[in-house]
């Protein structure tokens, strides 16, 4: 147990370094996608919620678990979709006129 916690702590510390190093290389023009992209990543808590709901006993736990799965799904699915849309926008090069309509859709919000 105590050994376990140390390993987890170590993983935690290393992840901090990785996070800092990697993000420090992101240019400011990509900060918004970075925000929503990392936002999507923590949606992986869904994995945890699934386990929780799976092991849930008694209504209380089941209700909470169900809610958790629902919220986490929103986070992970929505997060990645939104980010993809943003990055699609950032692909825009001076060359391709083709994307203008897409962009238009993005802005005025009508469906494709």
């Amino acid at each position: 147990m105590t050994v376990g916690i140390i390993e987890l702590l170590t993983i935690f510390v290393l992840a901090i370094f990785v996070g800092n190093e990697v993000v420090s290389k992101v240019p400011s023009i990509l900060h918004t996608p970075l925000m929503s992209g990392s936002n999507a990543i923590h949606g992986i808590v869904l994995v945890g919620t699934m386990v929780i709901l799976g092991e849930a006993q008694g209504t209380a736990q089941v209700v909470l678990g169900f809610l958790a799965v629902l919220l986490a799904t929103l986070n992970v699915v929505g997060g990645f979709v939104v980010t993809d849309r943003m990055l699609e926008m950032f692909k825009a090069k001076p060359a391709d006129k083709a994307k203008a309509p897409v962009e238009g859709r993005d802005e005025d919000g009508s469906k494709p």
Partner: protein
Amino acid sequence: MTLFTWIDLVYLLAAIGFILALKGLSSPKHARRGNLVGAGAALLAIGMTFAVPSVRHAGSHLILMVVAMVIGTAVAVPAARRVKMTAMPQMVAIFNGVGGGAAALVSMTAFLVFTSTSGEVAGKPAVYEIIEVVLGVLIGSVSLSGSAIAFAKLQELMPGRPVTYPGQQVINAIVGLAILGLVVTVAVTANVAVLVILAVLALVLGVIFVLPIGGADVPVLISLLNSFTGLAVAASGFTLHNNLLIIAGTLVGASGTLLTRMMSKAMGRSLINILFSAFGSVITATGGADGTGDTRPVKTGTAEDLGVLMAYASKVVIIPGYGLAVAQAQHVVKELADLLMARGVDVFYAIHPVAGRMPGHMNVLLAEANVPYDELKEMDDANPEMSTADVALVVGANDTVNPAAQNTPGSPIFGMPIIHADLAQNIVFLKRSMRPGFAGIDNELLFDPKTTLLFGDAKDSLTKLVAAVKAA
């Protein structure tokens, strides 16, 4: 190797995928592919989780699980696909909030399992285990309610400006202390009821934490809450002994913190100042600046006159802002610019780092209209040229040219570097009304004798101007 080893290995793979996703964002070229890698990793991990015995054999719970996931997807996908680009920050806020909520619920439920004698970990859990749970619940809840308020501010469901009220500090102090006390109590007693109260108070904390933060600063705030959610997820990862959650959560926590600092730097403010400036001078400053505008007269002009003004100018600087995006006027503005250049007028675009609603917003819009990159000048390169400009054409920008950022210490945007339209011989504003910008504060520049306003949607106004210049 046991099944568990396999699952863990897949989780490790997913973690690597997430790291690569973030690495991809270091250049616009690989950013999108990176994001897809991240999505794939998530999918992989989720799929593998169905192989976990307690999940596989969850019976009716398994059905509930799938139902929840289907509903979630059915809601999230269209929402994410339909949202206007201009509403992105709100969207991110929501998704971030629910994530924090989920993390809090995980820790909470895990605690129930711990403490219920029926749980496999019977008896009182170790203190550090309780601490993990408490952190998950606390941070997750703050992130949930905080994001909700942030959303409301961005969606203009409530005034964007800092909300302040008498005794604010006192209340904050009380809530803070109460939470501290509860944390200790839970750690000692491992009492579920206390934890629930703690969660509720944490929600309150989230609200009163965000309320006093000005609308223009909310994006920075969201980034901060984003890292909170990350840490909450990491905490629940500790509780569940799940490396993937720990890594993913920590990655976001660390990167979010760094990003927050980088963003506040771009706005020329310290993070502390952004989070807490409302307590103090602002209260007085924002008094009259609630965006209702005052009644002083402003000079308005006709498209014809302004067209002539620009046609015969020697140097015109175009300052685009959020309004350009709303009006989708990027193509027309290019038409105008090209027209003027054809007449030998020296024209360039001055881009403020936080113009629009996301970093790089203007660059993307104008690139899409095929404006050559060399016609775009970053703020710092543009400002030295402003004093020699005959016309500063402000297209749907406001806060980013608001002198208050420089000369009104109390103002919520004070300290933000601006584009000095005020230095130009003539300033032309294209906007629809006297309504203020994102920060919800009036702009003295609108009343400047050198300023002429052309009311109306930016696209229409620009089309008129194009005609006028042609006629001139």
